[in-house]
């Protein structure tokens, strides 16, 4: 994962002489460092880079040294007004915490699991696994980058096309038909129910208080139509549910409402 935008650390030599100071006329693009910092995919990546540069095992992590280096980078990024992701600061805080803990006398009884250093090492190791494998996946042959698919254009498939034959009159007729078609998808407003089930319950109770049995059809008012039937039926079901009346259906289709008495 060599990065071309990054320059070598060693002093360059010119005709055998080390060149220790940057020539005044050397042009350094102002965004050079910003660019290189963008190559880190996050604070873990930066931290791993610093560890790798030290050539040490993650397990032998010298937090104190790494923290200093890490914070130097953060300062530099800050000085360059590089928009820092908050996660970089979180990591800096974590490192500072570990460093400060190390300065305090060791508590022998301190539990391993609470140790932020070993927690950080575990996270770094876990991250390292995926970072490594992602680099391997990145160089796997990829379609349209490393290899290409073979295809052939399809032969002309003949589809029989018939011209539409239509007269002007037919077109007018169709237009009228479409225009007059009932609009099945239009919205409609739902009005308050004109017939209230509650009201109908009262009416049925009143009827039943006068006579014991009444046929369902006699409770209907013709003018109310289908809606009336539904409301009356709902009302009688409601009453039957509450035990005020009994619904009886004999062999005929007619339903009878029979009072169960004891209606106050």
């Amino acid at each position: 994962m060599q990065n071309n935008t990054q320059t070598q650390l060693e002093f360059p030599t010119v005709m055998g002489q080390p060149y220790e100071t940057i020539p005044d006329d050397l042009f350094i693009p102002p965004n050079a460092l910003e660019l290189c910092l963008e190559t880190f995919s996050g604070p873990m990546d930066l931290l791993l880079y610093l560890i790798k540069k030290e050539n040490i095992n993650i397990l032998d992590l010298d937090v104190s040294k790494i923290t200093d280096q890490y914070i130097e980078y953060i300062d530099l990024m800050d000085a360059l007004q590089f928009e820092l992701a908050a996660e970089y600061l979180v990591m800096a805080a974590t490192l500072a915490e570990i460093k400060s803990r190390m300065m305090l006398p060791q508590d022998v009884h301190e539990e391993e699991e609470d140790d932020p250093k070993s927690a950080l090492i575990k996270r770094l190791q876990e991250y390292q696994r995926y970072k490594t494998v992602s680099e391997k996946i990145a160089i796997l042959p990829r379609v349209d980058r490393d290899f290409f698919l073979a295809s052939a254009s399809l032969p002309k498939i003949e589809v029989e096309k018939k011209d539409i034959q239509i007269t002007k009159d037919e077109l007018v007729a169709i237009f009228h038909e479409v225009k007059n078609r009932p609009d099945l998808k239009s919205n409609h407003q739902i009005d308050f129910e004109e017939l209230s089930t509650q009201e109908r319950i009262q009416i049925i109770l009143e009827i039943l208080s006068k006579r014991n049995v009444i046929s369902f059809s006699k409770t209907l008012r013709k003018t109310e139509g289908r809606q009336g039937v539904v409301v009356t039926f709902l009302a009688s079901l409601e009453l039957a549910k509450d035990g005020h009346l009994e619904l009886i259906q004999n062999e005929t289709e007619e339903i009878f409402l029979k009072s169960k008495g004891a209606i106050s």
Partner: protein
Amino acid sequence: MINTVEALLFGSGRPLRISEIRSLLEFDGVTAELSEIKQCLNELETRYIDSSLEVVEIASGYRLQIRQEFSPALSHLWNERAPRISKALMETISIIAYKQPVTRGDIEDIRGVSVSTQSIRSLLERNWIKVSGFKDAPGRPALYSTTKEFLDDLNLKRLSDLPELPDPADNIVQDDDHQTIPQAV
């Protein structure tokens, strides 16, 4: 029949499974055993030995590819190169591939940075990942898994063909890939 199979592979514009080839042949009035179709594919392979083509089996079936050795020649056909995939995005897709199904939070835990909606979207748009469910946790976060297309695009048949995930204890210094970067001063 072998030529019909070849024609189907050339014309389909997508990988074909042997069973798909069989039903396509059936529409054409040819009944063939799966083994016979496999035989055809093998014969095509032999036929192409001396050509720029190859029959390749990937996760979604079989397809015809141009041998990789011709890629440099082909690359001049287009002005634009295939878009680069950032390091961060490769890390994200790798975590999804090895730990699937995962939530965005799971990825963030490992990477130590927030994973942008944009990067998840770009993987979804590429058809490399899909939402495979929702985790039974507060907020019901989406669970992501890789798709067959992801394997197809990397010329792989199955997930186990991906490089092996290194052991967590693997020594970091082992890889001698040294980045160089201007030192903080």
